[in-house]
Every structure is written in C-alpha cells, then in structure tokens.
C-alpha cells in the first residue's frame, strides 16, 4: 500500500464520500486545525454536518470519516495504479494552490513530475474546431512542448485532441479529465488519453470511479487555467466551454491568447470577442515564444521547408486566399489533375490542410 500522511489519508477519505460537495469538503477542512482531526468526529464537525445536510446524511458522512475507509480508498487507488497528490503534498503544483478553489486532491496517472513544470501553456478550444485551426494548434503544441513547455489541456475532440497529439511525442502534456479516470469522455478519445497517461500525465479531482456529470466540465476548466502560465483559446462559439477557461484564466491573472478569425465564422466568435476585450492575438508561434522568453533561434531547424517552383506558386496563392481549387483552376486555365499532386505534396509537407468542402487553407 502506498503510504500517505495522516492528513492526506483524511483528505482522501473526505473526497471519496459520495455526494459530498466541494464547499462542504473545504469548509470541514477549515473547521479543524488539520485534516487528520476529522477522524475524531469533533462536535464542531458534527454540528456543521447536521446543519448543512440533516441528521441522516451527516451520519453517513461521519461513518466514512474513519481510518478504515481511508485504507479502503488507498487500496482502491493502488489497485488502479492511480497516485493521489493532496494539497499538502510536496508534489502539489504551487500555481494551483493560489487559486480561490484549489482541488483538495489531484488524482494522477503518469509522470507526476510534470505538475512542477516551470513553464506551462494551456491550449483549449471547441470540439468543432476548423481543421486548419486544429492543425495550427497542433503545430504550436508540438513546437512549444519541444522547447520544454508543458501543455495543459482537456480530453475532448477538436482543439484538445490537437493539443494532445502535438505534445504527446515530446512527453510534455497534462490532460485534465472532467470525471474519474474510468469514465473518460468522450469514449472515442480513450486510446489517446491512455497514451497521455503513459507518456505524460492525466489528472482529475475526482476518484477514478466517479462518472462524469455535465457540471464537472466547467469546474474542471479552473484546473486547466490554474495550472497554466498562459492560456491559448483556439476556437469557440459564444456558448463554448472555452469561455469558462478564459474567464478563470483572467481571474487568476494568466495571460490570454486567442486565434483570430474572419467575420462570420461561428467557431471563432469567442476568440474574436476575447481579442476585442484585450486578449493577445496569436497568429504565429513567435507570439508565444517571446512571452515564454524562448529565443527564436532555438526553434527546431527543420522548419525550413524546401519547395519546388510550382509548389511555391500554389502555396503562395493559397496563402493569399485562393482556397477553392475549382475557381483557381478556372482562373489559371489548369486542369485539376495537374495541380492535384502539388496539393498532396504541400499537405504532406504540412503547409496546407484540406477542410470541409474541398477548401484548402495554409497552416503557416
């Protein structure tokens, strides 16, 4: 059995009680001088619980606040290979300690050392991120993580997935899961999240067996914002969950970056709004590099991509906004099969991406 201090064990037991809300948990911790005292069932504790939730419920909570239950919780975690980092632990990230509602326990799987990363960047966005924005986000994630910045993100498809795919090869990735580890949402990202657990770190503030609920997602976003030095918002419409992350980031005094979007693009409304209200505009990786004090020359050298003449012509045209190849062919009197190989070549070189409806967008 992994050894935890008595205080930590008390927190583990406290946080594993079904239906006990965060506000009660944190209040209980404040009532006693140190969490280990909770096991002694003080009259203060009893009184608080009875006032807060009634006689019957208070009784069940007190029944769980025992050394035996703590043993049981630790056992459960050990069985699943999950390590708990409590707010008293030395591994607990400093940046998270100072937010208003720090999670009492972080359940971790993977490289716990990442919690103490000196440089962190949150990358979040909507699940419906346009593919060129996704591709750009991935690129940023890859480069930044390659330069020693730990990327913090969620577990959803779209922008989160792009951030994970970019950073996982550099092993500098923290993915914050909304529910317990046994219920990764969405299902289709299970394999990717497992990959993160192996090469990076996944964390959650709930015990592994907790099923996700809709309210956990915005609550989870405070951890992403709290862990990050700066937060990059890749996409989002007006109602997107990324708005919560942005708001938390501002509350915590983090720098906020956002991709710019053209007029009328639904999935970019949030970003434009944030920029309007003072977020930094990020349309090139250099914007972030200088903020992290990284010398541009450190950027990996294989960035220089050699282009043939015809490739350069087409790339330039796409950069200038010629995204519809049917129109491009008609204007330049070309047959599509003449440019098809060049398009693929540019795609393989990572300079353009194909988006819905056969449109091509530059990524750099």
């Amino acid at each position, binding site marked *: 059995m992994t050894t935890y201090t008595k205080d930590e064990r008390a927190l583990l037991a406290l946080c594993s009680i079904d239906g006990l809300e965060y506000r009660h948990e944190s209040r209980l911790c404040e009532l006693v001088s140190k969490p280990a005292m909770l096991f002694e069932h003080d009259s203060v504790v009893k009184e608080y619980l009875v006032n807060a939730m009634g006689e019957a419920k208070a009784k069940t909570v007190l029944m769980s606040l025992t050394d035996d239950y703590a043993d049981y919780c630790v056992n459960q975690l050990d069985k699943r290979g999950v390590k708990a980092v409590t707010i008293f632990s030395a591994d607990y990230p400093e940046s998270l300690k100072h937010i208003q509602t720090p999670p009492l326990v972080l359940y971790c799987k993977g490289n716990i050392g990442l919690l103490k990363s000196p440089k962190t960047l949150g990358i979040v966005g909507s699940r419906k991120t346009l593919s060129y924005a996704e591709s750009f986000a991935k690129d940023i994630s890859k480069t930044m993580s390659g330069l020693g910045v730990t990327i913090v993100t969620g577990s959803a498809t779209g922008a989160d997935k792009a951030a994970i795919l970019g950073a996982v090869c550099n092993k500098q990735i923290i993915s914050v899961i909304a529910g317990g580890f046994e219920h990764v949402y969405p299902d289709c990202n299970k394999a990717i999240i497992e990959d993160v657990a192996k090469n990076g770190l996944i964390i959650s503030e709930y015990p592994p067996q907790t099923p996700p609920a809709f309210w956990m997602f915005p609550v989870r976003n405070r951890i992403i914002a709290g862990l990050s030095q700066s937060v990059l918002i890749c996409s989002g419409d007006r109602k997107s969950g990324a708005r919560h992350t942005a708001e938390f980031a501002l509350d915590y005094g983090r720098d906020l970056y956002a991709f710019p979007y053209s007029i009328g693009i*639904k999935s970019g409304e949030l970003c434009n709004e944030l920029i309007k209200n003072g977020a930094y505009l990020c349309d090139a990786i250099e914007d972030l590099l200088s903020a992290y004090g990284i010398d541009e020359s450190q950027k990996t050298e294989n960035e220089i991509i050699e282009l043939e003449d015809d490739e350069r012509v087409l790339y330039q045209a796409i950069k200038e906004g010629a995204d*519809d*190849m049917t129109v491009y062919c*008609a204007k330049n009197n070309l*047959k599509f099969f003449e440019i098809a190989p060049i398009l693929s070549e540019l795609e393989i070189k990572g300079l353009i991406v194909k988006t819905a409806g*056969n449109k091509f967008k530059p990524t750099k």
Partner: protein
Amino acid sequence: MISKITSYALLGLEGIPVEVEADISRGMPKFDIVGLPDTAVKESKERVRTAIKNSGKNFPVAQITVNLAPADIKKEGSKLDLAIAVAIVRVGEEGLTRDVTDTVFLGELALDGEIRSVTGILPIALSAKQNGYKRMIIPYANKTEAAHVHGIEIIAVKTLSQVINYLKGEEINAAIPIEFTPAREADFKNDLKYVKGQYIARRALEIAVSGNHNILLVGAPGAGKTMLAKCIPSIMPDMTFKEALETTAVHSVTGTLSSADGIIKVRPFMTPHHTATRIALVGGGPNVTPGLISMANNGVLFLDEMPEYMRTVLECLRQPLEDGVITVSRAKGSVTYPAKFMLCASMNPCPCGNYGSETLECKCSDTQIRKYKAKISGPLLDRIDLQIQVDSVKYDDLVSTELEESSQVVRARVNKARQIQLERFKEDGITTNAEMGERELNKYCKLSLENEKLFKRSFEALHLSARGRSRILKVARTIADLDYSETIEKKHLLEAIGYRSFDMNQ
C-alpha cells in the same frame, strides 16, 4: 387424345422447358391443371376458356386435364396461358397439323383472345436457343426484346386466332434479327457538360469509372452529389453485347424493361430508397426474384444518404461487392443472380450537414456525428476505394452559360484506360484495377524506392490508416492508366493520396 406443346418456366435467370400436355376425355365437364401451378397459372383456366371462346372456337365440353411437366418445379406467372390454350385447341380441332415439336409458345391471354406481353422473354430465348429449339411464338409486345437473340426464329403474334391460323398452315413472317448498336449520346439522360465547376469531383468520378472503383461522395446538402452521381452511366465504357444481354435478362425477369428498345444499352442506374429492405436489395421473396443490386448489374448502384440505410442492409452488400454475384437461397431452392455493379454512395459530413462549415452552424453532438459515421462499417468502407468531398458550387459558376467538358469526351478516355487494364490483366482473370488482390498489387503496383519513401512519409504526415494503403495504390494505378503510363510515378501517387479517405474513425 393428347397434344403436347412446349413452353418455358424460369428459375431465377435460368429457363426450364415445360411440356404442356392436354387431354380431353368424355365425362362430366371439368378443367384441371396439374403439375405444381402457382395461383397465376391456376387462374389461367378462366382466361384460356374465355379467350378460346372469343376467338371463335368452341371450348370443348368434356373432361380436360392439363399437365405441366416436369411436375416437380413450381410454375409461375401467366406466360403458360398461350401454350395451354393451344394444347387444348389442338386436341379439340381438326386440321391444326403444323409440326410444333421444336417451337416454344409463350404469352398471356386476354379475355378477347389478344396476347399480352410477358416477363423473362430474353433469358428464355437464350435458353431455348441453347436447348436446340428452332422457333418461338411470343407476344408482339416482346418482339424487339427477343429479336436481339440471333439463331432462333422469332414469330411475334397479336391474337390467339392468329396462332391457330398459323397452326393451320398460314405463314407469319419471322421478326428480323436486330443487330446490337451501342447507346447513342441522346440515350443518356444526364451529361457532365451541364455540371458546373466541381473539378475535383469530376476528376474523381473519371478515375472511379476508369478503374471500376467504388466511390463515396461526402458533402453538405445541396452540394450536387446526386447530380454528379447521375452522370456516372454516361461516362462508363460502352456496353458490350454480352453485358447488355446480361443486364437485360435481369430486367426482363423483373418486368422493368421498356418494350421500345427491347434491350438495355445505357448502363442501369439504380437508386433504392433508404427504407429498402435487405430482400429488396439483394433479391428473394416468395418467388426468389432478383433484387436491386442485380438490376444494377453492369451499371451503378447509387445509395443516396448512405448512413440512413439500415445497417443490416448495407452489410449485405459486402459479399456481392467482392464476388459480383449473389446467391439467394429460399425454401424453393437457390438462385444465383449477377450483381456486378459499381457502388456510388453519398453522405453528409454529419446528420445536420453543416459539420466543418465555416459559415453554418453544426448542431450535432459528438456522439451523433460518431454514430452517423459508424453506420458504415470498416469492412464496407474498405471496399470503397475513393472517398471524396464535394464542395458546393459558387453562384458565379452556376450562372455562367459556358458548358463544361462533355461526357462523351470523358468516356473516350475511360474506354482507353479500360482497354489498357484488359490487356494487362489478360492472364489474371480480372478485368479492372478495382478487382486487384494482394498478388496483383505486388505485380503491377510496384513503387520506385523514392516513391516508397514518399508514401511512407505521407502516412506519417497525414495519419493515414494502414487499411488505406492498398486503396491508394489501386487508385494510383488507375491514374497512371489514364496517363498511359506503364509505371506508377510520383505525380500519380500524390494525386491518389489526395483522394484518400477522410477521417471516418472519429
């Protein structure tokens, strides 16, 4: 006294000679048909009786027994009417002396003695010719259809009395055999020249048809997927006489043949509705009739909004897509129908159709989108070599009056590419690139070392699945054929990579 007349029954597309024997003996007047007749055949009693009476002959007032041999095969439909009537008239009347041992009688009778068209004339004529029959007496309405079969005399008749006079010795001119001519441009309902813009999709269609690859068109509602698909028959290679006969035989059995042409020259384009059942698609039912995939034989099966089809229905397509035939087994027996078709399917990127659009909002949840895409299983997707996106046409393109390249020009290129494939696969027992297996891929789709490297690089850069590898190679082979190139070169491979499958796993 007994008289024997030959007619035909159909089991699937296979004709079976039926001996119709009629006997008239004295006794209480009655009329029996024995030898496993179905309801339509049993009812023919009444039609035969009235038709004979209305043709000015006397219906014998005696004990009439008609036997249909072989007695162990169920006979269906009304095509035996004429043979039964002739058999009865021949026993009762003197002077009908013409030798009819090598003549096949087919036709349905109307109450006034007229002869109506029947289904399945073409496969029966082919089988009759093979079995050594010299002559066929058939309904006039089926004349053009039967006249395409050479080597058997086709006598088309309009009424029962005409047949009786013929038996008395009067001559009827045999139908002139029709030479098969390929379809003319006017026969095609749709032409690519009216499809504005869509250069990527046009090119993809040309490749798909050239290599007989199945194709999936993905695009927002109104992008023009259906219009593009409808043009496929017009760019497919000209039908050969053999193909035309194969396809016509199926349509003859299902009764979907127009009597004006008598033969199908334009490759069929079948569009089952998405509520279609398995049996409607693959064939079956009480009479083991061919399904829509057999009616699409040598043509196109178009599944519009593919994920809307029932999954079980889609899974049924896997085996025929592989084998080109479908064997339908029922209590009555097993019947094999041809089902060599090109599959063209279309779908939206998500249930609401706006996923990935920059301007329109997609209202679908992740789960909905995933479920929508998961309707098409991996194994089925593996059989679809080309999966392309279709873009909506810009307004400027729509209003321009300039015509695009016509189907005729495209078809000429397709014909050439097919010719190259026929030459190449002479000894492999296949005819098109789409049919290539691992063995042929190794033999004909070798990549140079440099291209192999490029291919590997693209897999990493574009997250292609290993499953997609052979699909891309096959398509690259077809692109090389369209370019008259012996080997697959870099540009061919690159273009093929551009038509790769979009991410269906999410």
